[in-house]
């Protein structure tokens, strides 16, 4: 077994983590402001955007931030399929992180300012789809989705036409790269929301105009593109079975739910049953969320699935599923009982009590205090910007939820109140490489919030995988660290893309035992790994 290590950083853990131990002051240079252009017509797209990605686009070892912007909507009727994306106010934005923690807007230099005026931006997926060592971007929209190939020279080019991943029209939301057929090339799943257009858009309510509920518009099928490995993709939505079902998808995440070695797909659907696509290991999928017990609430009611994470929260070695929902539904936590069966654990875990009247979007399990248990951070705010007039007990702007995991049960983090905002996208990653997971949350129609984690008391280990026979990013690798598990990948949350490195809090454990089950089948074991470092791990050549 060959062990390639690259110690990039080794810092002593900070002071005892005191609940919401975040600084949320905006870093210098990060001047993005999301522009959603709400109008009196209550076009639904104006309520739903805000993708954010954490990626190291220039391979300097520091995470950069990419924001997806909305577009211009006007009061004039009929609405046009024109969103003024050539106006800088509506550009997507890429911010390069500088050595001092400040950021520089490199959007134009990176070639990312030219969003088509026909696109209203939604989400983003970041990964190295062509295995060239540079992280690429796939941006979803209402309109045309765009694949930006990273040239490796600080810029991106629109590779959409050649790659063939721009076939989706209408409204795409979250997207994610994963290697479903384990051929070493990352494939692409695109979640789609509904059959909606500016032409068919209308508001609901009578005296008070509100955004229409999703069931007002027809459901639509998701898309799956298989990476041929030559820079092009094949639309396998139909042949894979993914396209056979219509849903109202907002979130997507991947993990090997049943430990058969192949990644499965969980799709958060709005106002209907959730989807769990089981990978049949032959290029097809079977939807079995109902049979698996991960489709509905504990009362058998559909939930408004928005964000999702597919990660082991209770350290039993099996990936669980969290689905954020609208208020009064309770976020759904499906515990993986093994053998592909899930049970609803929102009540026992404390998630129900924490989320009872809140509306969640981007979300993720991450060990915020490095105690060895993944905590929970959720972007919140009701979808209706005037919900207070309908139900004074609800809020369109809410503080994000930070909940600490105490042995599998979540408790609201202590600390000062966080600002109430219309949170949407949320991406996790260690911005300053100090071993404490940070997060960036997009805010609908406003500036983002950067959660700079001041750190907890525990030890940590961050793994940066480099696939060989497997895809270069190592996505799909099942990684076990001192018994904890994470499946490598960047997808999840809502419209967003996480740091692809894998972070583990270790508590007080000193010797670290690592096992990586690469998608290729190679199993790599590392013993006595030093804690408090970012460790680069390359996939061995042989089993």
């Amino acid at each position, binding site marked *: 077994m060959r062990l390639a290590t690259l110690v990039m950083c080794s810092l002593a853990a900070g002071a005892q983590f005191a609940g919401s131990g975040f600084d949320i002051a905006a870093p210098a240079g990060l001047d993005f402001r999301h522009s959603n252009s709400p109008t009196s017509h209550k076009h639904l797209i104006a309520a739903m955007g805000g993708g954010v990605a954490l990626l190291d686009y220039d391979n300097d070892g520091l995470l950069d931030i990419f924001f997806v912007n909305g577009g211009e909507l006007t009061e004039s009727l009929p609405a046009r399929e024109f969103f003024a994306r050539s106006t800088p106010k509506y550009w997507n934005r890429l911010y390069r992180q500088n050595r001092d923690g400040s950021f520089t807007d490199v959007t134009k230099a990176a070639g990312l300012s030219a969003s088509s005026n026909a696109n209203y931006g939604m989400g983003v997926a970041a990964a190295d789809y062509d295995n060239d060592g540079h992280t690429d971007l796939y941006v979803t929209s209402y309109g045309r989705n765009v694949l930006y190939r990273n040239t490796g020279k600080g810029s991106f080019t629109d590779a959409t036409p050649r790659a063939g991943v721009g076939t989706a029209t209408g409204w795409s939301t979250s997207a994610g790269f994963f290697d479903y057929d384990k051929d070493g090339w990352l494939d692409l799943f695109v979640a789609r929301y509904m059959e909606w257009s500016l032409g068919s858009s209308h508001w609901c309510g009578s005296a008070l105009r509100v955004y229409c509920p999703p069931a007002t518009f027809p459901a639509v099928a998701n898309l799956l593109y298989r990476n041929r490995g030559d820079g092009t993709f094949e639309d396998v939505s139909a042949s894979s079975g993914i396209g056979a079902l219509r849903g109202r998808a907002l979130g997507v995440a991947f993990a090997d739910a049943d430990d058969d070695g192949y990644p499965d797909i969980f799709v958060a659907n709005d106002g209907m049953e959730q989807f769990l696509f089981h990978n049949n290991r032959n290029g097809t999928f079977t939807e079995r969320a109902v*049979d698996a017990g991960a489709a509905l609430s*504990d009362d058998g009611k559909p939930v408004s699935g928005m964000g999702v994470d597919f990660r082991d929260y209770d350290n039993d070695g099996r990936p669980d599923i969290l689905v954020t929902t609208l208020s009064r539904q309770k976020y759904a936590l499906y515990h993986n009982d093994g053998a592909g069966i899930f049970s609803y654990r929102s*009540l026992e875990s404390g998630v*129900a009590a924490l989320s009872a009247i809140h509306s969640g979007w981007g979300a993720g399990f991450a060990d915020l205090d490095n105690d060895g248990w993944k905590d929970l951070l959720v972007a919140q705010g009701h979808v209706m910007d005037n919900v207070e007039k309908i139900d004074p*007990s609800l809020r369109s702007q809410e503080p994000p939820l930070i909940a600490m995991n105490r042995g599998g049960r979540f408790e609201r983090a202590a600390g000062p109140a966080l600002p109430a905002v219309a949170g949407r996208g949320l991406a996790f990653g260690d911005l300053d490489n100090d071993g404490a997971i940070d997060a960036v949350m997009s805010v609908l129609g406003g500036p983002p919030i950067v959660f700079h984690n001041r750190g907890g008391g525990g030890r940590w280990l961050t793994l940066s995988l480099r696939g060989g026979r497997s895809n270069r990013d190592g996505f799909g690798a099942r990684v076990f660290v001192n018994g904890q598990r994470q499946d490598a990948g960047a997808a999840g949350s809502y419209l967003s893309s996480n740091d692809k490195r894998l972070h583990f809090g270790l508590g007080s454990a000193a010797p670290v035992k690592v096992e990586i089950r690469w998608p290729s089948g190679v199993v790599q074991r590392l013993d006595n790994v030093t804690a408090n470092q970012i460790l680069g791990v390359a996939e061995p050549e042989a089993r």
Partner: protein
Amino acid sequence: MLASLLTILLAAQSLPPEVVKHVVAGTTAQREGRYEEAIVEFTRVTVLAPELAAAHVNLGSAYLRKGDYAAAVKPLRRALDLNPGLIGAHQMLGFALLASGYSVEAIPHLEKAESADGLGIALFKAGRLIEAVVRLHAALEKRPNDPDLLYYLGQASGMLSKQSLDSLQAGHPAAARTHQLNGELNAIQRKLPEAEKAYREALRIRPELPGVHLQLGEVYASAGQWDKAEVEFRSEARARPGDAEAVYRLGHALLEQGKVKAARAELERADGLVPAMPETLYDLGKACLMDGDLASAEKHWRALLAIEKETQLAAQAHFGLAGLYRQQGQAEKVDAAMREYRRLRTR
């Protein structure tokens, strides 16, 4: 009405042939739904035999059939002038007046006709709410589930309730009950902080006031503040240990917080106080499942399904059973439970 028709037909035997001809024509036309024609014929009869009370009754009846209530009043009044003992005419006149908006005038006629339903409605319209409730209750005993009667009973009861509460608020603005009432009104409008404040004030004045802790708990529950709801439900349950609802609410609040064992204990207590309450059985099933006691969970949900077979709660119980059987690996039972769940859900 049939009686009056027979009366006029019998009377017709001693009437001139021309009158009889119009009586027969009018009767035939009315029977066949040609009310305009019946009205013409019966009007002719009232002209030819103006002292014949039954002729005016039939004309009024024709107007009623046609739906012209205001026009029915005059001939029916004339009939009763001629023969005040015509009970059928009183009933028809009462309905005609009521339908024309003259509820006060309708009341004596409906009283004479002993028409509980019409009288109840007339009394309600006349603002005599207590009497209206009594009469409508009596009418419902004869015609249970009649939508009109249920509607008016609801309206009358509601207004009666409002009258009492208005009097309470006006006469005793600082009373604990008034604050309790204000709490209820704010809670209905989802003005939760205001409701909380009002309930707190009620409890400050009368700490023992029954039901206020329960209501305050409900306010917290609707705001998702289950920990605070638990405190209030516990206070209510402690003060009134025989109150099954308070104990059930406490169990539910505990369940929502994932305090499984405590929730189960309270729900079992509630079930002991008032056995076979579907909501309690459903939550008990959930608590037992979460507690790992699958056999008890199944027992409680089965007990619920023995009581409720076609409701939303029944659907939820089937769904819960499916999850339970899934944990046990009993695929056939899972399928059967899911079939029932889907059947009920699509209804």
